[in-house]
């Protein structure tokens, strides 16, 4: 039913859509690279999404896979190989024909061990070279050195490069092509005249003639320009500005539901950290961590810091991730009495408003977070108050981002840390380096020689199992168990899951804000400007 409505909606929209015009919105920083294989920051990702052609696309609304440049595909050898049937008659933006050789070239370039990119590393489940076989110009089989979990979904991030075009990366298969880049100011994308997708009437998409990306970091200025009509979209907008916008222009403020982003706290459980032993024993205690979690009022944080546009987080997976979210889990409830009861089990006692451990040490610790993020600073202040209510003194230390990274990755000189989690991918295999105890991003105690606790060993086993399994239902069963362990042991205290907030001007048509990135322009080839806006552009 939903699919029928979507198809109907698209057809109707395409019949009514107007051709031409320039869409304008902002990038938060300069794109670091225009090479789609090296993309790591958000601005480069935006440019890649709008200009790159991929074999398989994840539909941001339905979260299902859709054929793009590949009309069909088949995974074989337990997830080690994938065979694509490619679309015929497609050309790059400069006219060079698209064939299986281009896919082979792209995959070889991506899997080059000297190329250290997040996209490439996602495919690199084991060292070794990738093998490509091209039995026909429109068929290709790619064999990886080891099985890759969720192989097909990963191709959503691989923009195909041309092996023959003299323009190299500048020749694209996506709806737009980069026409101008003024550093510090703007990136202008123009319609790709050779784009293969057509609308219902058979005319070549995209509807838009160009997309103008302004480089603007100041969000206040961005909002003012949006209200003035200079910009037609704000892809992600802060909750405070969203609430202001919804008072002023309610129709333009769109809340698509929970996003994949959440905020969390963790305690330093590294035994070699330069902290007093009694503090280390606090942080390693499950009762202590669960008690802190119970003492934090998440509902207040959602209401005050996020203006109601967030919900208490359940775990590492957001409810927006329909398939992988463990719906049986609930977020830790706010219960200071339960917190004190748990602490009492470990010998903590509340005396004269000060909580002390069984040795008499007053419970005091610091929370580091990055500066310049107002929401985090406010959350830290609220948590400080919540913990003061159970006799814990929290010291908030804001650091600039690099100093923070040094503390959590290198010197391990911190007690607790408040940071956010951005999931790039719906598949939990992309988070392997967070859950494996031997990995670097296992934040609370990275690079373990062997698992320090039985539950971490269990998580290791389950994550390896889900990566090796092929049947999605089995993988989900394993990962559901991981989520249960995480909720129970609370190495990360998940605080809130933020909503996906955007601003959409009535000047743009066909925008359907989604919960995952890119929220508003995931269907860029079908975005069109309203007639009034086109007339304004023409002037």
């Amino acid at each position, binding site marked *: 039913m939903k699919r029928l409505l979507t198809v109907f909606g698209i057809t109707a929209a395409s019949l009514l859509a107007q051709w031409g015009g320039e869409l304008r919105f902002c990038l938060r920083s300069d794109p670091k690279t225009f090479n789609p294989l090296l993309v790591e920051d958000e601005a480069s990702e935006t440019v890649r999404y709008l200009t790159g052609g991929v074999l398989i696309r994840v539909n941001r609304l339905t979260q299902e896979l859709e054929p793009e440049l590949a009309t069909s595909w088949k995974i074989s050898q337990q997830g080690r190989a994938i065979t694509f049937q490619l679309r015929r008659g497609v050309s790059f933006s400069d006219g060079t024909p698209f064939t299986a050789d281009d896919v082979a070239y792209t995959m070889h370039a991506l899997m080059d061990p000297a190329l250290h990119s997040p996209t490439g590393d996602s495919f690199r489940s084991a060292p070794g070279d990738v093998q490509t076989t091209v039995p026909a110009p429109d068929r290709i089989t790619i064999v990886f050195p080891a099985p890759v979990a969720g192989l097909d979904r990963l191709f959503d991030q691989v923009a195909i490069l041309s092996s023959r075009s003299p323009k190299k990366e500048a020749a694209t298969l996506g709806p737009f092509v980069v026409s101008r880049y003024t550093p510090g100011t703007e990136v202008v994308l123009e319609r790709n005249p050779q784009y293969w997708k057509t609308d219902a009437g058979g005319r070549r998409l995209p509807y838009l003639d160009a997309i103008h990306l302004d480089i603007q970091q100041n969000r*206040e200025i961005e909002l003012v320009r949006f209200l003035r009509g200079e910009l037609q979209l704000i892809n992600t907008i802060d909750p405070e500005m969203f609430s202001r916008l919804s008072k002023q222009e309610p129709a333009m403020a769109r809340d698509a539901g929970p996003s994949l982003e959440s905020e969390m706290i963790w305690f330093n459980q590294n035994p070699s950290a330069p902290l007093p032993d009694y503090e280390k024993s606090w942080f390693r205690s499950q009762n202590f961590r669960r008690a802190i979690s119970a003492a934090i009022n998440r509902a207040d944080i959602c*209401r005050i810091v996020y203006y109601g546009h967030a919900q208490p987080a359940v775990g590492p997976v957001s409810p927006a991730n329909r398939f992988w979210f463990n719906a049986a889990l609930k977020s830790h409830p706010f219960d200071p009495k339960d917190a004190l009861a748990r602490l009492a089990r470990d010998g903590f006692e509340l005396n004269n408003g000060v909580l002390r451990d069984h040795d008499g040490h007053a419970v005091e610790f610091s929370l580091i977070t990055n500066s*310049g993020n107002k929401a985090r*600073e406010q959350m830290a*202040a609220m948590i400080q108050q919540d913990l003061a209510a159970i006799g814990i003194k929290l*010291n908030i230390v804001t650091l600039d981002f690099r100093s923070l990274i040094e503390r959590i990755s290198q010197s391990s000189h*911190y007690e607790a840390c408040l940071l956010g989690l951005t999931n790039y991918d719906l598949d939990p295999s992309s988070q392997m380096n967070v859950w494996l105890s031997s990995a670097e991003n296992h934040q609370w105690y990275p690079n373990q020689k062997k698992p320090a606790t039985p539950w971490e060993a269990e998580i290791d086993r389950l994550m390896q199992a889900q990566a090796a399994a092929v049947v999605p239902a089995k993988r989900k069963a394993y990962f559901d168990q991981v989520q249960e362990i995480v909720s129970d042991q609370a190495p990360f205290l998940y605080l809130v899951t933020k909503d996906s907030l955007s601003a959409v001007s009535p000047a743009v048509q066909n925008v359907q804000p989604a919960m995952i990135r890119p929220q508003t322009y995931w269907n860029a080839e079908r975005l069109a400007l309203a007639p009034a806006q086109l007339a304004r552009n023409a002037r």
Partner: protein
Amino acid sequence: MKRARNIAAGVLILIFAASLLAGFVAPAPYAAQFRDLVSAPASRRFWLGTDELGRDRWSRLLYGTRISLLLAPAAAMLATFLAVVIGGVAGYAGGWCDRVIRRVIDLFLSLPWLFLFLIVRSLLPLDATPLTSVIVTFTIMGLVGWAPAARIIRAGAQSLRNSDLVLHARACGCHGLRLVLVHIAPGLKPVIFAQFWIAIPTFILGEASLGLIGLGVAEPLPSWGNLLRELANPQSVMSNPWILAPLAVLVIVVSCFQLLLPEREFVS
């Protein structure tokens, strides 16, 4: 003019007293969050309304005034003292001493001092209280911010050295320390005071700018710096004009200082 100075003195004493007695005068602790009354407008209970976390703005202004009023002048004094010593020696001594000091001043004006702040911050222990870190921040500002004032004092000292007054004194046999203390220092006094009172709001604003990159005062301690940061959002100012209160207090304090200073400022 006399009346204006008396009024200024009175206002300053009032503000000082109110901030020093903040513990008794403030209706609520500065960190207390009234979570049901977030961003409330001014009322009988909250004279300046509440901020985004439901904290009483009036209490925060009182406590913040105390911190900034004590620390910024202290830092300004430190910076001015260094500027007087270094700039004064350069201007008075002349010759190669002057040349070397000029270069040192230029050096000080060009270095990226942000990193010194970052280094010192990272060396502070994790349990350093917010007050400690703000004292350290202002101290560094004082130790580093003397260079612009030194240039001006140097120019003043130099023209004093060449002035008739000093020439006359030297002709009369006065030299060395006595010359400096009796003839030059009084001539420099107006310049020094001018630089001192300009330095105070400069350091307060400097603390506000440092706050933008996380080197400011840690939560929940209020200071004029982080109260002034709320102004960076003009839309919220228009909807809640009480946010301008810290700015108003700062302007009043600075103007009062200005009125209290001796009128003659320049070397003759």
